[in-house]
């Protein structure tokens, strides 16, 4: 598969998905939107890829929809009306049912629609110069899906504040860390990719099948109340019983060796 607006790389067990429109701060045009759907699926279906890292080429991570294209191509947001009304969208790992751990590594600015990939990742780390803001209301747009996703995962006031302050205020990486929106700041910023790779390799030491079932259980918890989430979680938990990794893990531990996990099929 070849891509015009994304870079796909593989380093050991870690698959990389890199936004590649650095001249427009990695804003997403229509073509890039289609490429996201293919790229997530490609990495998800590759058994050699155990963890996926998502970052941006150039100074910034992602700045949402390409407003330049919207303003000039005569179609504008109308292009997305049907898919939005149906919530039939395909540009994040959550939309594409990726059940491998996904790390978003935020370089520079993440704003507006860029929050989709913060909300829909499992783990988020950021360079020390990262900045977060949501300019939707400052350019006459509604923010919904990405802010809703974030509100499910972190203190709500901070998300509301960003939504209403629009382009007039930015959150820095320190505050994002305090709030638990991200879990790690990488300084200097140039070390971001190196650290993301390291983190990916560490996670790749764990059982791929156990992580996939865990991911289903945890995302299920965002859909259900506590008791129902536990009941749904029990199904994912039990799905692992009888899987070879479930015996291999304790055996390797007892024998003080690295486990040989079965790849995801």
């Amino acid at each position: 598969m070849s891509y015009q607006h994304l870079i796909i790389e593989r380093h050991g067990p870690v698959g990389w998905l890199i936004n590649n429109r650095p001249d427009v701060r990695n804003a997403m045009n229509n073509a890039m939107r289609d490429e996201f759907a293919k790229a997530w699926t490609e990495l998800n279906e590759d058994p050699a890829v155990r963890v996926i890292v998502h970052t941006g080429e150039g100074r910034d991570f992602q700045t949402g929809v390409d407003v330049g294209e919207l303003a000039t191509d005569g179609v504008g947001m109308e292009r997305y009306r049907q898919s939005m009304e149906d919530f039939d969208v395909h540009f994040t790992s959550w939309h594409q049912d990726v059940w491998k751990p996904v790390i978003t590594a935020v370089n520079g600015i993440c704003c507006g629609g860029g929050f989709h990939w913060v909300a829909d990742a499992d783990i988020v780390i950021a360079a020390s110069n990262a900045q977060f803001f949501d300019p939707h209301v400052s350019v006459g747009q509604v923010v919904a899906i990405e802010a809703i996703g974030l509100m499910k995962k972190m203190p709500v006031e901070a998300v509301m504040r960003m939504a209403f302050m629009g382009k007039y205020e930015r959150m820095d990486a320190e505050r994002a860390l305090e709030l638990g929106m991200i879990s790690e700041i990488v300084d200097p910023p140039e070390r971001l990719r190196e650290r993301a790779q390291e983190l990916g390799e560490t996670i790749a030491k764990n059982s791929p099948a156990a992580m996939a079932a865990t991911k289903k259980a945890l995302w299920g918890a965002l859909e259900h109340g506590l008791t129902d989430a536990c009941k749904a979680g029990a199904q994912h938990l039990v799905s692992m019983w009888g899987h070879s990794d479930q015996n291999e893990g304790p055996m390797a531990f007892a024998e003080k060796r690295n486990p040989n996990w079965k790849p995801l099929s």
Partner: protein
Amino acid sequence: MTIEIHHDGPVGWLIFDRPDAGNAIDAQMFVDLEQAWAELDADDTVSVIVNTGNGRAFQSGLDVVQLAQDPEALKASSRQTKRAELRLTAWHCGVTKPVIAAVNGICAGGGLHFIADADIVIASSNAAFLDPHVSVGQVTAFETIGMLKKSPVESIARMAYLGRHERITADRARQLGILSEVVEPEQLRSRAQDIAETIARHPLDQLRQLKRQLWAALEVA
């Protein structure tokens, strides 16, 4: 007994007591826990329950080695897991009184149940939290689901996927709101007793009603 119970004023203490095994839950503790919660909840002299551990660790989850040697106990625990009907924590056992977890050291894997299901959590400065399930080929579900209903989700997901390769420190856990107070190890029990006595100044009926309402809020999707 694998659980030590004692009383101090209006406070009932439920203390994990398998210090040589990191307080891991063996077949006996599986049974003792349910009885201990029921006993303290039914005791009219107890208004608030504090849960902590003897020795260096708080709780390190199921003692898989011991359970493997006891097929009947293993079967029972498997059945409860499958049906999401575990009887380990205050929440599982329907305890109606406020519960404070006082984390005195490592809290790992299934030990996280007792954090997720407590009302208030405090910790000693040497406490640490990790979930090694995926590193030994197991799924983590109930305890991390409970925690992510109450804390920033990314931090819990990170703990789940990093497995035994990373720990959350007591200070970071406080920053994230997983717990509310970090104290020096030798002060942990006296501080827990203080907090419990403060809460116990309120009428028990009111505390019970409040607890019921707040936990009900977590049942909404």
